[in-house]
C-alpha cells in the first residue's frame, strides 16, 4: 500500500510531476500536495459536491477519484477557469453579481458544476438547473442566487454562440 508511485498530472494545462501513494485521492493530491486549495473537501465521501472538478471536460468528484486515475487526462479546477488574461469566467462573474454564495466554501464546486451544467445543455429552465445542480450542497442556502447565476451565464453563452 505504501509504495510510492511517480505520476504526471495535467492540471489546468500544466504538467505536475508528483510522487504519491496510489491511495491518494485526486482531491488530496490537489489540496495537500499541489497547493491547489480552491477545490474543497466537504465530506470526502461523494455526498456534497464541494470537490467537483472537470476531468476531460466532465464534472467529477475529486474525493471519489484517485490521483492515478487522472493520469493522462486533463484536469480543470476552479483555479484554471479564468481566461488567459485573468478575467473571470462568465460563470464566476455571474456568481459574484447574483450573490450566489455566502461562506464560499461550496462555491468552487458549484461553479465547476455550473460550467458543466451549461455545457451539458441542462440549463434550459429554472427547474432543470435546480435538478442538475442538486448534487452540490450549499448550507448557507444560496440556491436562488445559484439558479439566477447559472441562468444568466447560460444566456450569455447562448448569445455568444448566436
Amino acid at each position, binding site marked *: *500500500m*505504501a509504495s510510492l508511485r511517480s505520476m504526471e498530472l495535467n492540471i489546468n494545462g500544466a504538467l505536475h510531476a508528483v510522487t504519491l*501513494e496510489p*491511495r*491518494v485521492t485526486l482531491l*488530496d493530491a490537489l*489540496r*495537500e500536495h499541489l*497547493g*491547489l*486549495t*480552491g*477545490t*474543497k*473537501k*466537504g*465530506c*470526502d*465521501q461523494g*455526498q*456534497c459536491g*464541494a470537490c467537483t472538478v472537470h476531468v476531460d471536460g466532465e464534472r467529477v468528484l475529486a474525493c471519489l477519484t484517485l490521483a492515478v486515475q487522472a493520469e493522462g487526462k486533463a484536469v480543470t*479546477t*476552479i*483555479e484554471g*477557469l*479564468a481566461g488567459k488574461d485573468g478575467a*473571470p469566467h462568465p460563470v*464566476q*462573474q455571474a*456568481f*459574484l*453579481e447574483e*450573490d450566489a*454564495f*455566502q*461562506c*464560499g*466554501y*461550496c*462555491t*468552487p464546486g458549484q*461553479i465547476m458544476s455550473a460550467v458543466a451544467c451549461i455545457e451539458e445543455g441542462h440549463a434550459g429552465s*429554472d427547474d432543470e438547473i*435546480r*435538478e442538475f*445542480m*442538486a*448534487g452540490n*450542497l*450549499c*448550507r*448557507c*442556502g*444560496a*440556491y*436562488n*442566487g*445559484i*439558479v439566477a447565476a447559472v441562468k444568466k451565464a447560460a444566456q450569455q453563452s447562448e448569445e455568444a454562440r448566436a
Partner: protein
Amino acid sequence: MSLTDTPAKYGSAADTEATGPLGRVAIRGDGGLKVRGGATYALEQSVENLLHCVLVQATIGAGRVVSIDKAAAEAAPGVRLVLDAENSLALKPMPDFFGNTPPGDTYVPFARDIRFNGELVAAVVADTLEQARAAAALIEISYEEAPAVPTFADERAGEGRAVDALAKEWGEPDGPHAEAGMRFAATYETPREYNVPIEPHGLIAHWEADDRLTIYEPTQWIDGTARNYAGWFDLPFDNVRVLSPFIGGGFGSKAQGLPHSAAAAIAAKMLGRPVKLAATRPQTFTAYGGRPATRQTLTLSATKDGRLVSLEHDAFSETSVYGTFAETLGVVTKMMYAVPNFRSRQRIVPVNTVLPGPFRAPGKNPSAFALECAMDELAIELGLDPVELRRRNEPDHDFETGKPWSSRRLLQCYDVAGEAFGWAKRNPAPRSMREGRELIGWGMAVGTHPVYAAPGEATVRVLSDGSVEVLSSAIDMGTGTYTILAQTAAEVLGVPVEKVSVKLGDSRLGRAPVAGGSQLANLMTAAVHKTAQAARDELITLGLTDPNSPLRGEANTLLVEGGTIGASRGGAIGIGELLAATGRDHLEVTRDTLPPAERSAEERQRMFSTLAGRGSLPEATVSKHSFCAHFIEVRVDEDFGTVRVARVVTALDAGRLYNPKLAESQFKGGIVMGIGMALLEEGVTDPRNGRILSSNLADYRIATNADVPEITAISVGEPDYDATPLGGKAVGELAIVGVAPAIANAVYHATGKRIRRLPITLESLL
C-alpha cells in the same frame, strides 16, 4: 421579485435613498477571491513541515475503555504519535460557553470513561493523511459497555431536571378564566438537528516557540477561541494567535475550542511540529453538539372571539450526561403575543450524547415551531383566519419584560407578505385546493429574533494614498462583515468603498465579540463608525493645528470627502498630501464601544473573550427584536405523500439593512434551512448504543437546490436607533424562525393532517 428590486419602499431598509455607501447594495468584498478559489480557509494555510492527525472516536454509548492496543498503529509507516488519555499532556480545565468546566484539576481531551458514542478516545499523527488514516484503523480498543440512554424518548431518561432560570410566570396561569371559551392543548416535537457547515471542523496547530501558539481554525469568535487555548496551555492571552480569515459556515457550531482542537494542539506541542487535523464528515456529528431534540406541550385558552387569555408552556430538551445545555424553548412563547396569564417551564433531560450546542436561532427556532403551530390550530378551532387571530393578539408592549418595543412592524409584515402572496384568495377548508394529483396548502407563521448588544473594537488606518484600512478580529462566515465594514468606513470618511480594505479574523487585530446571536453586524458597524469618526476628527485636527499643515488657519473646520480634506469653500488637498506635509505616512485610530470605565488589561480582554461584555452594557429600557412573517405554499402528492415547497413569501422587519443584497441572501438562507428543518433534517440514533445513524450528508438530509423554490423576501424594516447605534436589528438568524411551522400549517391545509413532529416525511403523511 427580490428584496433589492421590490417596488415597495419602507424606510432605508430597501433603500436607494441612502446618501452614502452604507445601506446600499454592494457586491461582496471577499466575493472575487471566493469565486476564483483564492479564498484560503484556515486549514488551507500554507505551513511548512506539517503532520496530519486523524481522530478515533468511541463506538459504545456508555461505559469505559478497558485497554487500547496501539502497537500496530505505532508501528505503521509514517506514524509519529498515537495519543490517548494515557500519554496525552494534561491541560488546565476551561469552562465552555455555557459555564460547564470539566471536573478535576486537569483536562485531557481523550476519554477513558465513555459518556457518548463518538466521544474522542485517541488520535494518530503521521507524515501523511493516508498514513494517519490507515494507522487509526489499526487501533484496537476494548470496552466495558454500560447501558446507554441514547435519547430522551427512551423511558429510562426520565423527566430530567428543571431549569429554574428559564421559568417565567405572570398573571394567574391557573385561572379560573371564565371568559376563556376555548381551550386547546397539544404537544410538539423536533428531532436532533445538526449545523453541518460544508467546511468540516478542524485546525492547524503550530507552536512557533515553547510558549507561543498559532492556531488556524475556522471560528466564529477569534477572541473567545484564543482565550480557550491560552487557558488550556496556561499561556498569556497575547501568546496565542488565532487566525480565521474565512469560515466555511458555522451556524453556531464553530465558536469555541472542542476536544479535537485541544488534541491537535497537544500533538503539535509533543512533536514540536505543526499538526493539521480535520474531522471527517461522520466525526463532525459527535465532535460538536447540534440542536438537541425538543418536546413542548402548549395549553392555550382564548375568548370565543380569539383573544388569548392564558398560555401554559411545558418544555423538555436533551442535554448530555456531563454538562448543561438548555435550548431555551420559552423565548418566543414569552414575548410574541398579548398573553395576560402565562407560565413557562423547562426541563432538561440528560442522555448519552455529545453536549448539544447552539444552532441557528437556538431556542427561538423550536420555540416558534410549537407556538406557531398551536396558534394555527387554535385559529382553526375558533373558525378564524390564522392571520386575523395573530392580529387580535398583537401586543402593544413586551408582556414578558413590561418594556415598550424599540420597533415592531409585524402588522406591516402581515400586510405586505399577505398581499404579495395572495393570502386573501385562500379557501380556509383543508383539502379544498388542488391541481391534478397535488393537494395545495397555504400556511403562515411568524418568526422573531432578539437584538443583542456587546462591545466591539476596531482600528482604522488612513494611508497616504488616501486609502483606508479597517482592522478587527471580527470574522466573516458569509455574513458580509468584510463588505459592510468597508461600507461603514467609506460612509464616514467620504471615500469610495473600493478604497477601503478590511482585514479580519486575526487575534492580533482589535477585539471583537462572537459572531453569534445575529449581533456582529450591528456591533461592528457601530465600532467602525465610531473609530472612523475619530479618525476623521484627528485628520481635521491635524489639518487645523499642525504647524506644517498647509490648511492651518484656513478655516475653523474642515471637510473630509472624496479622499481630500479642506475648507468648505474650496482649496482642498489630498489626504496623503496632508499626511506627508505633517511628516506621517498614515494615521491610525483605535476605539471600542465599551462603556467608559477604568479597567485592567485582563478585565478589558475578558469583555471580549467571554460573554462578560454583554453584561457590561447598561440594561436596555426597550425590548429589541426583529420580526418576520412567512407565507408558504406546499404541494403534496396525494398518492405518495411527498411534500414540495412551491412558494415562499416572507416579509421581515430587521431594521435598517447595511447592505440589502447581502441581508437578502441571509434571509433566504435562513428560509432554506427552515425548509430542511421542516421536511428533511433528522438526527437518528441507534436505540441500542446511541450511535448517530445519520452521520453523513446522504442520511442527514439538508435542502438541495431541487428542494427550494424561488423565495421572495421583502424588507419592511425602518432604522431603529433605539435597538442599535446604526439602526439595524437582527438579520442572520431571523428568517429561519417560523419557516417550519408555516410549512406544517400549510401541510395541514393541504391534507387535513396535523403533523406535530418534525421532520414531516411521507411516512408521517401516509
